[in-house]
C-alpha cells in the first residue's frame, strides 16, 4: 500500500538532489562576503524549512488521529516527527558550521531561525521518551498526538517570539532567507528546496512501508498461533493494527 510508486519516487529524488548539488557547486555564484562557505546555506535553510513543515504536518496528522481514532494516522504522525527530528540534528550542525565559518563562533544567538530551532528541537527530543514511558499502546498514541498538536502549534508561536526578541537587540546578520536573492542563487535555492522536500517524502514513504510490512508480519505470526508472544523489545514506535472489520 505504501510501497506503490516508491521506486519512481526514489529515482526522482536522486535525480533532483544530484541536480541541486550540481547547481550549488557549479552554477550558483559565490557570495561576495562569505565566499564558498555560504553554500552551506543551500543545505541548512531547506533542511530547516522541511523539518519545520514536518513538525507541523505531524501535528496535523495527530489531529486526524484524534478525530478518526485510526492508528494509521498516528503512525504517519510519528514518522513525520521522527524524520524531522533527524533533520533537526542536521539543521543544528549545518547552522553551527555556517556560524563558525561566517562569524567565527560555533554558536550565535543573533540568528533567530537557528535559535528558535534549538528550542523546538529540545522540545521534540521529549517526544520519544514520552512515547516510551507509556505502556498501553492506545494511550501512548493518544498522548503522543496531544503532544504533537501542542508542539505543532508551538512552532509558529516560538518563531514569532524569538524573532521579536532578537530583532531589537541584535540585528540579523546572517542569511537572506526570504527574497533578496539574486537570480541564480534563487533558482539554486529552489532546486535545493525541491530536493530536500522530495527526500523527506521519500524517506517518509520508506519508513511507512517498512513499518507497515513489519506489522503485517506480526499479525500473520499472531494468526498462525504464536499469540501472546512478545518480542521483549520495547520501542517508542507505534505498531499499527490491521482491523479485521474495516469501518
Amino acid at each position, binding site marked *: 500500500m505504501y510501497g506503490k510508486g516508491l521506486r519512481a519516487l526514489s529515482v526522482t529524488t536522486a535525480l533532483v538532489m544530484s541536480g541541486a548539488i550540481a547547481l550549488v557547486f557549479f552554477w550558483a555564484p559565490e557570495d561576495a562576503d562569505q565566499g564558498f562557505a555560504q553554500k552551506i546555506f543551500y543545505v541548512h535553510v531547506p533542511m530547516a524549512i522541511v523539518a519545520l513543515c514536518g513538525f507541523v504536518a505531524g501535528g496535523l496528522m495527530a489531529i486526524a488521529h484524534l478525530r478518526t481514532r485510526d492508528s494509521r494516522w498516528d503512525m504517519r504522525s510519528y514518522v513525520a516527527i521522527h524524520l524531522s527530528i533527524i533533520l533537526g540534528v542536521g539543521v543544528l550542525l549545518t547552522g553551527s558550521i555556517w556560524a563558525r565559518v561566517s562569524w567565527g563562533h560555533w554558536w550565535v544567538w543573533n540568528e533567530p531561525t537557528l535559535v528558535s530551532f534549538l528550542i523546538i528541537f529540545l522540545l521534540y527530543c521529549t517526544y520519544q521518551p514520552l512515547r516510551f514511558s507509556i505502556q498501553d*499502546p492506545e494511550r501512548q498514541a493518544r498522548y503522543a498526538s496531544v503532544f504533537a498538536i501542542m508542539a505543532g502549534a508551538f512552532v509558529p508561536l516560538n518563531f514569532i517570539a524569538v524573532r521579536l526578541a532578537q530583532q531589537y537587540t541584535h540585528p540579523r546578520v546572517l542569511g537572506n532567507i526570504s527574497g533578496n536573492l539574486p537570480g541564480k542563487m534563487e533558482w539554486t535555492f529552489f532546486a535545493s528546496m525541491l530536493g530536500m522536500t522530495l527526500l523527506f517524502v521519500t524517506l517518509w514513504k520508506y519508513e511507512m512501508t517498512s513499518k507497515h510490512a513489519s506489522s503485517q508480519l506480526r499479525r500473520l505470526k499472531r494468526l498462525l498461533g504464536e499469540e*501472546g508472544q512478545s518480542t521483549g523489545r520495547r520501542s517508542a514506535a507505534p505498531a499499527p493494527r490491521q482491523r479485521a472489520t474495516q469501518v
Partner: protein
Amino acid sequence: MTGAVELVGLERRYGERIALADVTLTLEHGATLVVFGPNGAGKSTLLRVLAGLLRPHDGSLRVLGHTMPEEDWAVRGRIGLLGHDPLLYRDLTGRENLRYHARLHGVDDGRIDEVLEAVGMDRRADEPLRSLSRGMVQRLAVCRAVLQDPDLLLLDEPRANLDPAAGDLVEPLIGRASGRTRVVTSHDPAGGLAEADLVLGLRGGRPELLEWAEDLDPARITELYT
C-alpha cells in the same frame, strides 16, 4: 423490553493482547450478574467498560437503554462503581469526600448523612481517611458508590476488606436486597452463586461460562480456576 445491560460481541484489546472478546449477554433490570474468573481474566476490564471508563474496540454495548460510548452522557450518574480503588482522597475526611462527590452528581447533603448512617460511619465521618482502617474506607467507598442512587451497580469484589458485621451493614445498599441491577465480580463460588441470577465465567478475556445461576453446578465455576 430492553435489558439494563446488553452486550453483543464486546471486544476490548490492550495493544495486541485481548482483554475481552466475544462477550455477549443481556442482563435484566433488577437482576444480578456475577462474574467469575482467575486474575487477569478481564473481570475488572468488563466493569470499567460498562462504567463508560473504557471504550469497546468492537461489538456493541448498551447500558440502561443507551448506546455506549456515544450516549455515555445519558448514563453517567446512574451508574455506581465500586472498584479496588475507593476513589477517595486520603487527606480529606469521609464527609468532605462525599460532599465533593455529591456536588459533582447534584445530590443533596441530606443524602450524605443518610448513607453514612446506613453503613455505620456517621461518627467517624469527620476524620481524614488516612486515620481509618481499610474496612472503614471500604464502607465509605460504598457510600460514594450509592450516593447518587444509581440504577446500575458495578461491584469489584465488594466484600473484600469487610468483616461480616460490616458486610451486613452494606448489604441493603449494594446487595441483592437493594433491588438494583448489579454486576458483581467474585472469587467465592458458593457465596457468589447464592446472590446471582446470571453467571459469567471469564478466562483470558473470553467467556467460558454463561448460565442461569439456578441451573448451574458450582463445580463448573471452580473449573475456571484450574
